[in-house]
């Protein structure tokens, strides 16, 4: 019998306990993986390479304050700017107020939007059809699938921010990177339907020459409009997305405290199991030592048993988490926040590693005591 086999046999000697421990640790680390995935998606994703080239120019106060469309040409004339497009959050209601019918709706300029968002993909004939139809719209593939829309379908959006009901025809179906998916239609629709906001738009997205140019460009745009009636705030697309998350509140502290609670709970479960399991085997340990196993070996045997069990729990949890995260991403209750979230391989490895470390820490005290125990006392021990 090899030592590995010995450890494996011991880990599974009380199958019920092993399974319960595995499940308990697994569920805790599942949660850890979900939290790490949210963290990663919120704070660590760099977005696409194309995204690094873009910056967003909005009113200094908030997105609810509009900017004059005249800024567009002023921005376009600045050095380092390739393309500029205006966007406005329409915020209309599709069918009803239910969360599953909520999606992002943008009014924009069909002529230039695809030149700014170089990572959008659409068949050229569909783009042309949309550019020709002032009451046309395009939707991303996921959205089209969710609502079963096909080209030529009619979509009515009841205006809530604007007193305009947009009656649109689907002219194209495109693919978009995470965060920019949704429905896009011609801004002229709002301009004509609600003259009060004619000439005003929500924000501009600017495509810069290079990622290096972005921060300098942001400064010079803000400088240009600093003393105007409507000062601007320009930032990279990534910084802009982060500011949305910051508005949710102290998300970082929320996630961190849950992660800490989860790791600590896992530690408790694992320590409890190992303490129970090692106590049961006091006599065996004494026997092992009589057979000539050193203290070091006994310690290593228990530790590897615990580490193996907890790491398996971590791996199981991480695998289950990828299913849970997929569910969260698809759930309408989560809104736009969790869209396109995925558990990555490194995150799964981290979860497994956390499991292993928890196994190591939790087994140390009982395993150390067992390895130090007196042989004669151990042999005399009654269960």
């Amino acid at each position, binding site marked *: 019998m090899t030592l590995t086999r010995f450890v494996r046999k011991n880990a599974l000697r009380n199958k019920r306990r092993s399974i319960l421990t595995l499940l*308990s640790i697994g569920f805790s680390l599942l949660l850890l993986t979900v939290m790490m995935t949210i963290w990663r998606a919120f704070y660590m994703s760099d977005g696409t390479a194309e995204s690094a080239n873009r910056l967003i120019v909005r009113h200094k106060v908030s997105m*609810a304050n509009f900017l004059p469309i005249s800024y567009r040409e002023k921005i376009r004339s600045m050095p380092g700017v390739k393309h500029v497009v205006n966007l406005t959050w329409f915020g209309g209601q599709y069918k009803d107020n239910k969360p599953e019918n909520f999606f992002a709706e943008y009014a924009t300029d069909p002529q230039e939007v695809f030149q700014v968002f170089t990572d959008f993909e659409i068949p050229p004939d569909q783009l042309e059809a949309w550019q020709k139809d002032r009451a046309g719209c395009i939707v991303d593939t996921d959205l089209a699938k969710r609502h079963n829309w096909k080209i030529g379908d009619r979509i009515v959006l009841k205006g809530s921010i604007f007193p305009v009901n947009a009656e649109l025809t689907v002219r194209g179906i495109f693919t978009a990177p995470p965060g920019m998916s949704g429905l896009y239609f011609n801004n002229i629709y709002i301009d004509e339907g609600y003259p009060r906001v004619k000439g005003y738009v929500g924000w501009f997205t600017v495509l810069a020459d290079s990622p290096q140019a972005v921060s300098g460009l942001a400064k010079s745009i803000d400088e240009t409009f600093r003393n105007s009636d409507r000062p601007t705030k320009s930032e990279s697309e990534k910084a802009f997305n982060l500011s949305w998350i910051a*508005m949710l509140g102290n998300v970082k502290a929320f996630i961190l405290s849950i992660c800490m*609670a989860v790791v600590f709970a896992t530690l408790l479960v694992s320590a409890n199991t190992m303490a129970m399991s090692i106590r049961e085997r006091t006599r065996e340990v004494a026997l092992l030592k009589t057979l000539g196993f050193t203290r070091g070996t006994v310690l290593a045997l228990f530790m590897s048993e615990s580490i193996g069990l907890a790491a398996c729990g971590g791996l199981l949890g991480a695998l289950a988490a990828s299913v849970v995260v997929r569910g969260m991403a698809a759930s309408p209750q989560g809104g736009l926040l969790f869209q396109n979230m995925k558990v990555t391989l490194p995150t799964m490895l981290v979860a497994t590693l956390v499991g292993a470390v928890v196994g190591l820490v939790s087994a140390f005290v009982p395993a150390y005591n067992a390895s130090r125990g007196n042989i004669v006392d151990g042999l005399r021990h009654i269960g």
Partner: protein
Amino acid sequence: MAVPLQYNIRNLLLRKGATVMTALGIALTVTTAIFIMALLAGLRDAFATSGEPNNVLVLRKGSTSELTAGGVSRDALPVIKDLPGVARDAQGQPMVSGEDITVIVLPRTDGTGETNVTVRFMTPTGIELRPRVKLTEGRWFTPGQREIVVSKSIHKRFAQANLGDQIWIGKGNWTVVGIFDSGGSAHDSEIWADINQLASDYDRTYYNSVYIGGTDPVAADALKNRVTDDQRLELSGMLETDYFAEQTSTGRPIKFVGVIVAVIMAIGSCFAAMNTMYAAVAYRSREIATLRVIGFSRPSILTSFVLESLLLSLLGALVGIVLMLPFNGMTTGTQNPVTWSEAVFSLRMTPFVVGSAVVFAVLMGLFGGLAPAWHAARREILASLRD
């Protein structure tokens, strides 16, 4: 006959290590659940206690938020003032307030960046329409002056919101002349200022919204319908209380993540409790057989072990509640999608929250204890005695 509870308590005390570790595990789960429930309770409280039952909010037809672009023309005001059921103030003037809302950016005191804050522009009648909002320091703004009054929480959470401070809104600096307390309602996230000053600043010829005070809740309900049905106005009325109640949806992301977190943690804790209880049963196999020989029936053994598991989980609940107590009343903020600014609220461990946490823990104990207890009750006496 039931096995005395003393037996379970002593057993828990005997296996201190396992008891403490399992209870702490449950406590952590309970703490997390209370934290999330308290956040939601605080948020719900803020919106549920907002709004006067007598007040009707009037917006442009189709609009769902006070912030949305443009709304009520100034010409509509005389029509609204003449509607039956409008309350009158001490001077006999109809209680109608044309209002506007804008959003400004303020830096937080704790250095966690800046955030959006709602500024409500109103008439002095608007203050009268909200009798529960009390001035705690300074005075109300004077019409025609660039003066603002901030809520107590804004005063606390943001730098430059002290009496005498200047805040840049629109085209100039406004001086803080007072601090008000709205007792945890949504107005706690607001700054109040004079509407006429705003109108001249921004050259606005319309109000974003109009508030009407009804003589009583029944009149308010009728007023709401009258405004909506009046063909001249093209406006829609809603009760102020309904308007705020709908904004509770602000808590949706917290609720969504919170439910997932609490459920997953609870399942994990259930398994942990089950593990401990199985160990307890295995450890006492001969003892249980002895109890059976003495004459305790299978159901009473089952009950006894379930009770032991419940005791364990209640201990966990107690520790969890105590752990969360210091956080009760802590103020925090989140983005309100209706006003595009920060909704300030505090963590509230209401009796309902604490009660739910206890029920939550009891459920964990029940699910964790049932299978092991069943196992204990089913064991054959002879086999167990021979163990």
